[in-house]
């Protein structure tokens, strides 16, 4: 069903128009044919009449001739003349009628000389009668003058008549057929087209009306407040389909809106009740505020008295701060002296450190001397050994030398021992020196810390002085500000009265607001009832 309703209706009307045109054209054509067929029938009848009139003219002439011959009365010649004079025009007329038919024209051409011949014979016999009398004329007629000619004329004309008759029959049957055709076309065509058009009309109506009824029913149920129904989708793409879809969308939208309204109404209802509660609370609150204001007024009076007291105290504070400033100046001087003393100690510590370092260096050079003495003792020992060897080689004479060598060796050994002792002592000295260096460093550190600490103390005392100066200033400021405070307290008392009045006004406004809210609440309830009429 891809076609739109408009297209369907157009198609139906178009079909009806086509059928009407078909029938009109058929009737027109058939009528024309009938007319032409009947013309041809009339034409054949005319031809037949003409042939008959030609023959009758011939017979009139013959009759007249015979009458004259028999009577000799000239008056009998009148039909003869009439027939003789009328035969050629009639023959000419006949030829004009049959000019379309070759056979008939040919026959007419054949009959014309025969007629001339016959007329000439008849004239000759009339002349014979007039001049020679009846007898000779009768002889001429008996001799058969003109009889054969007349017979052949008759025969030819009879042929022509037959031919025309045959044509007439043919044309009549053609006309009959055409008539039958027209008749049947009318008889069958009208009912068939009526049926087709009726079917098309019915189907279009059905196609349009049924869904429209459905839509109408749904619309009626919406009007009655039922939003639960949906139109079943028919899957149509035409106007009806679009109408149904739009209708469904409309229903969904109405439903959503209804729900939104319901929600809104509910919110309004709850909000208005909340506001009602709040208003009641505010009313209570303003009563409390009134009570609080009277308390505050009392408190302000108390604060006023307190600030007078504080002003007095601030003056006392100022005096004592001045004293503190003086004392702290003394303290600062003492600290400065301390710093100078510590700095002296520090210098002396530096000197001690220098001395100790010198001592350390000297003990190192003593170490160097000990090493060389040890080396000497070693070499002496070797020398003693070598001397002993030499003494041994010398044998008995060398014995005394061996003793000397042994003594040298003992001396070397002793000097080695002595250097070892010196080394040991020197080690102790070096250890002590190191300890002294360490102690000096620690002393230096302690002195530095002392300098730092005394600087901090000086700083602290300076800060203290500053602070006491500031305290004096602040105390003065406190005196001034407590005066201002007193004035401010008076102003607060006045303001409190204003607040009290404003609280009264607020209370009145609250009552009015409460009334308005009650109205709003009722309105919300009504709105809710209205919305709830709709079935979802």
């Amino acid at each position, binding site marked *: 069903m891809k076609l739109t309703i408009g297209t369907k209706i157009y198609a139906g009307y178009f079909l009806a128009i086509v059928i009407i045109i078909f029938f009109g054209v058929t009737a027109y054509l058939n009528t024309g044919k009938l007319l032409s067929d009947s013309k041809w029938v009339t034409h054949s009848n005319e031809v037949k009449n003409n042939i008959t009139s030609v023959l009758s003219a011939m017979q009139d002439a013959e009759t007249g001739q015979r009458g004259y011959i028999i009577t000799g009365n000239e008056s009998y010649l009148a039909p003869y003349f009439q027939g003789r004079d009328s035969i050629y025009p009639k023959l000419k007329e006949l030829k004009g009628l049959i000019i379309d038919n070759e056979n008939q024209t040919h026959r007419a051409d054949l009959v014309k000389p025969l007629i001339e011949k016959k007329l000439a014979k008849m004239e000759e016999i009339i002349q014979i009668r007039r001049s020679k009398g009846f007898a000779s004329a009768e002889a001429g007629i008996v001799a058969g003058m003109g009889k054969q000619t007349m017979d052949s004329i008759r025969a030819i004309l009879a042929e022509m008549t037959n031919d025309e008759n045959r044509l007439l029959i043919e044309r009549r049957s053609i006309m009959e057929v055409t008539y039958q055709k027209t008749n049947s076309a009318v008889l069958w065509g009208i009912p068939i087209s009526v049926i087709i058009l009726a079917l098309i009309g019915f189907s279009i109506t059905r196609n349009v009306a049924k869904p429209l009824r459905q839509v109408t029913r749904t619309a009626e149920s919406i009007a009655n407040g039922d939003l639960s129904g949906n139109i079943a989708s028919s899957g149509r793409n035409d106007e009806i389909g679009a109408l149904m879809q739009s209708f469904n969308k409309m229903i969904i939208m109405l439903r959503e809106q209804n729900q939104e309204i319901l929600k809104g109404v509910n919110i309004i209802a709850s909000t208005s009740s909340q506001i009602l509660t709040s208003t009641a609370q505010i009313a209570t609150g303003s009563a409390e505020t009134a009570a609080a204001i009277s308390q505050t007024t009392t408190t302000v009076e108390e604060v006023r008295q307190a600030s007078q007291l504080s002003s007095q105290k601030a003056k006392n504070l100022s005096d004592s701060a001045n004293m503190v400033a003086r004392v702290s100046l003394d303290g600062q001087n003492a600290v400065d002296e301390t710093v100078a003393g510590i700095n002296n100690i520090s210098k002396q510590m530096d000197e001690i450190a220098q001395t100790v370092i010198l001592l350390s260096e000297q003990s190192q050079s003593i170490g160097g001397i000990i090493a060389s003495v040890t080396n000497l003792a070693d070499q002496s020992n*070797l020398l*003693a*050994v070598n001397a002993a*060897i030499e003494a*041994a080689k010398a044998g008995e004479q060398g014995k005394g030398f061996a003793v000397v060598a042994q003594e040298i*060796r003992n001396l070397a050994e002793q000097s080695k021992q002595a250097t070892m002792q010196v080394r040991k002592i020197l080690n102790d000295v070096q250890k002590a020196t190191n300890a002294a260096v360490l102690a000096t460093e620690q002393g230096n550190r302690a002195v530095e810390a002392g300098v730092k600490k005394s600087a901090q103390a000086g700083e602290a005392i300076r800060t203290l002085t500053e602070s006491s100066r500031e305290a004096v200033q602040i105390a003065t400021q406190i005196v001034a500000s407590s005066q201002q405070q007193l004035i401010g307290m008076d102003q607060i008392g006045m303001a409190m009265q204003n607040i009290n009045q404003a609280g009264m006004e607020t209370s009145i406004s609250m009552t009015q607001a409460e009334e308005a809210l009650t109205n709003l609440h009722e309105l919300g309830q009504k709105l809710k009832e209205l919305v709830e009429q709709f079935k979802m």
Partner: protein
Amino acid sequence: MKKEIHSLLKMRAVAMAFEPEQKRDTSTITEIIEFALAAESYGIESAFVREVCTLKDFTPLPGVPSFILGIVNVHGQILPVLNLNIFFNLPDRGLGELNKVIILCDDQMEFGILADEVNGTKAIYREEILPVPLTITGIGEKYLKGVTKDHMIILSAESLLSDKNIVVNEEVNQ
């Protein structure tokens, strides 16, 4: 008091335990040079010692066994120096100074041996030299004369000087 008496008694007992030295024949006295090497104490007869000196400079020699440290210049004379530790295949025991050279000599041979310390000369009786105990291994028996009571190893200078193993006769193959 008790302790003092006790220690006094003990000292006397120790003194009395010593064997009194007997007078001996002085002809069996031998003069030895006592030296230390790798925490052991050695002795060698002074008759075969030419002199003792410190090792100041030496020149290593290529193409010789590892027990030959190198050559030194002693009073203008070029002498080879041996490391007995390596020669005797002894384990390396600690760090020694190895800065003394004892120069041995006899009629045929002359070389130096390294020592950590030269302690001096000592005269001992030949009878005091005990045979080599079995526990001493590594040192070839032929290089040892014996051991004294105070664990000094007496080396045999004659066998060291006459040993063919020390003689290096090697050609460097091209």
